[in-house]
């Protein structure tokens, strides 16, 4: 019976609560335009969080994703600067993103290295290449149609938001409805068992890192297209951190085997909402890290509490809480 309520409900509730509070504080927060802006600004982190979710599900971590944003964005800009059309540039960026991921996955699997170190190394490599290629300067995008990725919209929904939505749907299908999805959870749940069960572990691991790399490429394309310039420090800010936090807030375990795409997406929306709310409501920039931290913490406390206690029992538990504690937390 507890199982029936989806795991993501708690974090969804938190998102709603935070949005309601912000709407109450600021009338501008609750406008449709602001909702668009919120989602648009959250799109890159959401993409990274989606990719990261795959990696985390197998018990890995992908630190390279932030600088992969810069690398792929730069690749797109450079490709266009030599005259290629926008779609070719986009493909090139995605190919490079997947390549970085494939390298990560191969090193992790075939050399049995800790993912933290492997992706730390590729993080450095991916950060250096754009700097080396361009001498730290930016590269303007030449093909105006490239703007469609970051600035276009369909029925008023910004293209990056659509891309995230499509990716989330596809990824959810992959995880829930294909053998690969089962394999990903199994590898993260118990790699030894998975090996004995004949699951192609190598393929699974390389795949998740490749997906993460692809997501980073989409992040790079969005950033570059929104600014219409490729620059080497893109994605070097809080993106990586926030994207991992988004996944974890959404219930993805750093130890593998637990979590879902909708959860990670909701985590990203929560972070986007809070970040947007800060600026819209006008919280002083010094206070922002503190407020973000406290809200996320509060959210996860609510969520954790809900997970442990089925919604129905919540009230009665609150009364006689003391007695229940030790054993069921096992």
């Amino acid at each position, binding site marked *: 019976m507890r199982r029936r309520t989806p795991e993501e409900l708690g974090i969804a509730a938190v998102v709603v609560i935070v949005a309601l509070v912000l709407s109450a504080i*600021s009338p*501008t*927060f609750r*406008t449709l*335009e*602001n909702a668009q*802006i*919120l989602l*648009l*600004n959250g799109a*890159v982190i959401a993409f990274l969080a989606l990719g990261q979710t795959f990696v985390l599900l197998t018990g890995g971590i992908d630190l390279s994703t932030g600088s992969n944003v810069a690398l792929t964005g730069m690749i797109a800009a450079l490709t266009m600067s030599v005259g290629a059309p926008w779609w070719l540039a986009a493909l090139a960026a995605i190919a490079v993103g997947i390549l970085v991921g494939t390298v990560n996955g191969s090193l992790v699997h075939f050399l049995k290295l800790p993912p933290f170190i492997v992706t730390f190394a590729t993080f450095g490599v991916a950060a250096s290449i754009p*700097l080396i290629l361009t*001498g*730290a*300067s*930016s590269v303007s995008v030449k093909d105006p149609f490239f703007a469609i990725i970051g*600035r276009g919209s369909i029925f008023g929904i910004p293209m990056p938001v659509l891309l995230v939505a499509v990716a989330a749907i596809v990824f959810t299908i992959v995880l829930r409805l294909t053998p690969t999805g089962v394999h990903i959870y199994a590898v993260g749940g118990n790699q030894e068992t998975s090996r004995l069960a004949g699951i192609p572990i190598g393929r699974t691991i390389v795949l998740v890192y490749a997906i993460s790399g692809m997501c980073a490429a989409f992040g790079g394309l969005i*950033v570059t297209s*929104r*600014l*219409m*310039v490729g*620059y*080497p*420090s*893109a*994605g*070097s*800010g809080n993106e990586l951190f926030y994207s991992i936090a988004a996944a974890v807030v959404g219930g993805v375990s750093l130890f593998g085997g637990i979590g879902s795409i909708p959860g990670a997406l909701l985590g990203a929306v929560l972070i986007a909402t809070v*970040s*947007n709310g*800060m*600026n*819209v*409501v*006008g919280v002083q*920039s*010094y206070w*922002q890290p503190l407020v973000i931290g406290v809200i996320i913490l509060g959210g996860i406390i609510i969520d954790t509490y809900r997970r442990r206690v089925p919604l129905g029992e919540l009230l009665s538990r609150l009364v006689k809480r003391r007695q229940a504690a030790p054993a069921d937390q096992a």
Partner: protein
Amino acid sequence: GAVDTGTGTDTGTADGGIPRPAACDSDTPYIAVALPNLTNPYYVAMKEGFETAGADNGFEVEVQIANDDDAAQLSQVQAMLQKKPCALALNGVKSEPAAAIVKAANDAGVPVFTVNVTVDPDALEAQGASIVQYLGADNYAGGAQMAEQVLADLGADADLKIGFVTEPDEVPTRVRDQGFEETVASDANATVVAKVDGNVKPDDSLAATTELLSGNPDINVIFASTGPATYGALQALAGNTNVSVYGFCASEEPLQGNYKGCVAQEPGRYGQLVIEEIAGWLGGATPEAEVLLPLKLFVTGETPAPGEVG
């Protein structure tokens, strides 16, 4: 003794004129240059300025990049000081921590020429350190210039709702904001509505600006205190004609539409000027304590040339 308390030796050079290390009299005097990073094209240009001018003036210039880490810059400088340079040209990562770097150079008897980022005078005094010269843009004037431009464009008593896209954690940007804010205050109808943090990055500035406008739809002027912030703010505005953008110039971005004015620094030239100041000092001239360079103003229809950046 065995124990060094680290409280420092009073070299006495702090008050007794500029020391002249032996290296200054070699064939190619060795000049140590410490810059914060190379991910901002600003410093790329400055580095080139240093290197070209160094070659022209017969110096051996070594440029070290701190990757925005003050402690790393301190140790980089310490490492270069071991090679006994003739002078240190310092663009600190942050104003206050840089005082320790100056102190280290003082202790080694190496004169310090600072550029672009001022070293906090209080911190210098607290540590008993001194610099030969500060050379850089007049940040306060830059902000003020933009405010004047706003008032000239929109009217001295225009109803202004101003939003800032800035970097509140850094001194130069705060000084620019201050210059703008204090100058624009002459217009009684001007109000500063909100300030957001653009992190000196175009993407963060883009996001922050969209949110700034979303939260404050009545804003009609944006002051962006750095080049990347200006660029990001412009991208955030695409199509929105109600808002005018003023700020420090985005690199090579033509001024058109609602991008109405910007001021630019010339980091390459700053590097060159520091080298020339050092050369002048070696030639016997007395360097001025402060060289404040006016910023170059750009208005609608103009485009900053390469190397002219905010």
